[in-house]
């Protein structure tokens, strides 16, 4: 059983190292997916290896179907939370507006508010996201026109709406821009 605990602690490090290896391979061979896709490839690989390994390692003699099922549920929950955290931490360093503002201020040492606004504003934020949405196949660009392609991001956003309602948070940004309801 100690082996299982060691495997559980090792999984986060393995996920980061696997993602790092994929990113380095992608830089060398440009036909491979970019850094916004490699966390998902990493997730698929880790699910294919760590989940069966954990399920097998945790199986005890005399375990019934229910025990095996719970073992699999544990492995799936743990591994996919780690996979999510790996994606999330990279995303924060890449797409977080908070972090980008810090980086821009860091680059300039001192920057006036109007200069910062000229560098980073709504247009810049939208322009930064379009290539990522194209890479993630959520959008398609054809003859200069944008089309919705995938639904994963929109589905994720839709799933957050009931959670916002439960927590008493305005469901859409236009609702939150009312100062009475804003965070």
């Amino acid at each position: 059983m100690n082996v299982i605990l060691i495997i559980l602690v090792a999984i986060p490090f393995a996920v980061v190292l696997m993602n790092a290896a994929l990113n380095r391979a992608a830089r060398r061979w440009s036909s491979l997916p970019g850094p916004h896709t490699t966390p998902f490839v990493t997730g698929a690989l880790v699910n294919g290896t760590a989940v069966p390994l954990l399920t097998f390692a945790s199986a005890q003699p005399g375990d019934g179907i229910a025990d095996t099922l719970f073992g699999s549920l544990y492995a799936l929950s743990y591994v996919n939370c780690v996979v999510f955290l790996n994606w999330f931490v990279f995303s924060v360093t890449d797409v977080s507006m908070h972090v980008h503002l810090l980086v821009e201020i860091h680059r300039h040492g001192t920057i006036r508010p109007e200069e910062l606004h000229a560098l980073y504003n709504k247009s810049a934020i939208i322009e930064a996201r379009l290539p990522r949405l194209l890479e993630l196949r959520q959008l398609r660009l054809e003859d200069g026109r944008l089309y919705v392609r995938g639904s994963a991001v929109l589905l994720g956003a839709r799933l957050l709406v009931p959670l916002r309602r439960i927590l008493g948070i305005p469901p859409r940004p236009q609702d939150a821009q009312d100062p009475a309801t804003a965070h």
Partner: protein
Amino acid sequence: MTTAFVLGFALFCACWLIHVAIWRIRRPAAYPLWLPLIFYALPLLVVLVVISAGGQPLLLSRVDGFSIAAAALLHVVISLSYMCGYAGVIEYSPSAEILRAVRTHMPQGVPLEALRVDSLTDEFLVGKRIRHLRSSRLVRSDATGFRLTGAGEAVVTACRWYRAVLGVTGHGRG
């Protein structure tokens, strides 16, 4: 693993229900402090109280040490995932709003230069975040403009270091 899964998941659910109850009474602005208190400090406090009240032998007679450790690990990663995901709950995704704006033009699509995302504003996207950074003491402001505090510099350095570990060059576009 059955006990570990049930215990770990039940612990997360119990903390989540406390989180919802508090949020429905009054949603705290300092959620980066409140969420770890609810999901980590509170269970630890309960465990310490149980141990100090002499409840440890009773607990360990029902659940083995391995199951407790595995349950704790599961609770840690699920809670951490939730706390990280919470930022996505309160900070509306510009990507989702872009996709919604494009979807209103389907099936004919929208010219790239004609794309408008009216649900987002400069103040909502940038102004609000500058205020967050200042209230978090990562940025300070004086007559010459904005500059980073030591904590702000540490965040930038940590991001650069992590991206180097991940094999991703440069900084993101935000």
